[in-house]
């Protein structure tokens, strides 16, 4: 693949994840290079979220190796908090801190983790809020924002830590249709700037336009992967064809 000369940002080999008896990820291996935008498609329950959450160890990894940004996060000795500082995550339900206003949400991690002084953090926050078009909402509380606005703040909050990698778990699934566009637009901008992104989504249009690689997951395996054209327009695996025929 063309990205092969670039640095490997995420290396996953033989990743397995079980919840008790239930084996959700059975054997997943993948390398993701700097600047790639990997979109993960797959039916509900196929383990997409679980896979994403293993990449910053929000889920304990049962077996296999996951190396993120050069850190082996399957190694118990790795300071996972240090790794997470460089890996932003955006959730389906936004998860803005309800006790803090937008500014507080943006400044909490950079200041608490001594990444920036209060003034620097405030400046960065304002710059990022402008970028996502919400400079006028700095003082608003999450409850006063629309879904699309919340998600844009959530993206900006993750960016405030100046991450190398961004993970998105169905960032537009909880949004009213008219708000999906504004969030995808921000994500597209990030992709253009060369952010390494892993995105779980059902937005086939986004996958087609923005992804450098599309992965189809089912039953705890990567069933098929390739360029958007290969996977979405000319899928080879029957299960991919079946899935796409339902969502397209």
């Amino acid at each position, binding site marked *: 693949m063309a990205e092969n000369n670039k640095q490997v940002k995420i290396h996953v080999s033989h990743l397995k994840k079980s919840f008790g008896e239930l084996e959700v990820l059975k054997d997943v291996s993948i390398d993701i290079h700097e600047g790639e935008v990997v979109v993960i498609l797959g039916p509900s329950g196929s383990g997409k979220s679980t896979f994403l959450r293993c990449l*910053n160890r*929000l889920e304990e990894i049962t077996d296999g190796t996951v190396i993120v940004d050069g850190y082996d996060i399957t190694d118990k000795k790795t300071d996972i*908090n*240090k*790794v*997470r*500082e460089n*890996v*932003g*995550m955006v*959730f389906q*339900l936004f*998860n*803005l*801190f*309800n*006790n*803090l206003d937008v500014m507080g949400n943006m400044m*909490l*991690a950079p200041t*608490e*983790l001594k990444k920036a002084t209060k003034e620097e953090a405030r400046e960065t926050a304002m710059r990022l809020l402008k970028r996502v078009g919400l400079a006028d909402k700095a003082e608003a509380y999450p*409850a006063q924002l629309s879904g699309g606005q919340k998600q844009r703040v*959530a993206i900006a*909050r*993750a960016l405030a*830590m100046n991450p190398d990698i961004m993970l998105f778990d169905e960032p537009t699934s909880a949004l009213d249709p008219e708000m999906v566009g504004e969030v995808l637009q921000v994500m597209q901008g990030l992709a253009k700037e060369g952010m390494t992104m892993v995105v779980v989504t059902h937005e086939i249009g986004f996958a087609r336009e923005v992804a450098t690689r599309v992965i189809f997951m089912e039953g705890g395996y990567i069933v098929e992967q390739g360029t958007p054209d290969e996977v979405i327009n000319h899928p080879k695996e029957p299960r991919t064809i079946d899935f796409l025929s339902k969502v397209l």
Partner: protein
Amino acid sequence: MLLKILSTYGPLLLEAMGQTLLLALCGLFFACILGLIFGLLSVLKSRVCNIISTIFVDIIRGVPMIVLAFFIYFGFPQFVSSSLGIKNFTLSALQAGTIALALNCGAYMAEIIRAGIQSVDKGQMEAARSLGLPYWKAMRKVVLPQAIRTMIPSIINQFIITLKDTSILSVIGFPELVNTAKNVVANTMRSSEVWFIVGVMYLIVITILSRFAKIMERRINRGRE
């Protein structure tokens, strides 16, 4: 007669009410600390911590406070001097009363705090952790502030219960309101008036507390919207 008792024994009863409040405050202070410790132990992802917390709560809930008070005031010093060989170990009624109240109220506070923390959406902790915040920072800056909002009405309610429970500690001779009132009754032989006065005194203090709780609750809910 009521007025005569009031004028003669009023100051004494007021002072006893002061002692009641002192005991309640001491008990509540340590109950908050115990509640926080055991409440947090019960939400940690460690089985051992959860079990320690459960055992504490179950024991305290399963033993009447009057038994607890007797044990701490009489039994515990005896145990210390006979088993550990420390002579002349005693607890004052205030000390023993504070411990009994703190243990009793602390167990209920632990439950309130556990429920409060669990009422905060898991996504809040996950989002904080995903930014690189350590567990305790995330707890302190994100989860607890939200948990406390939901806990305040229950905590004030528990405060009221604890205030009333101080009367149980009359059995170990602490000069709180009920104990003092018993002496007044013995002196005056006027049960009806004395207990009426004492009842009204409790009622006034607790009504003030409840009103305060209502106001706090309304404030919190207003902030929600």
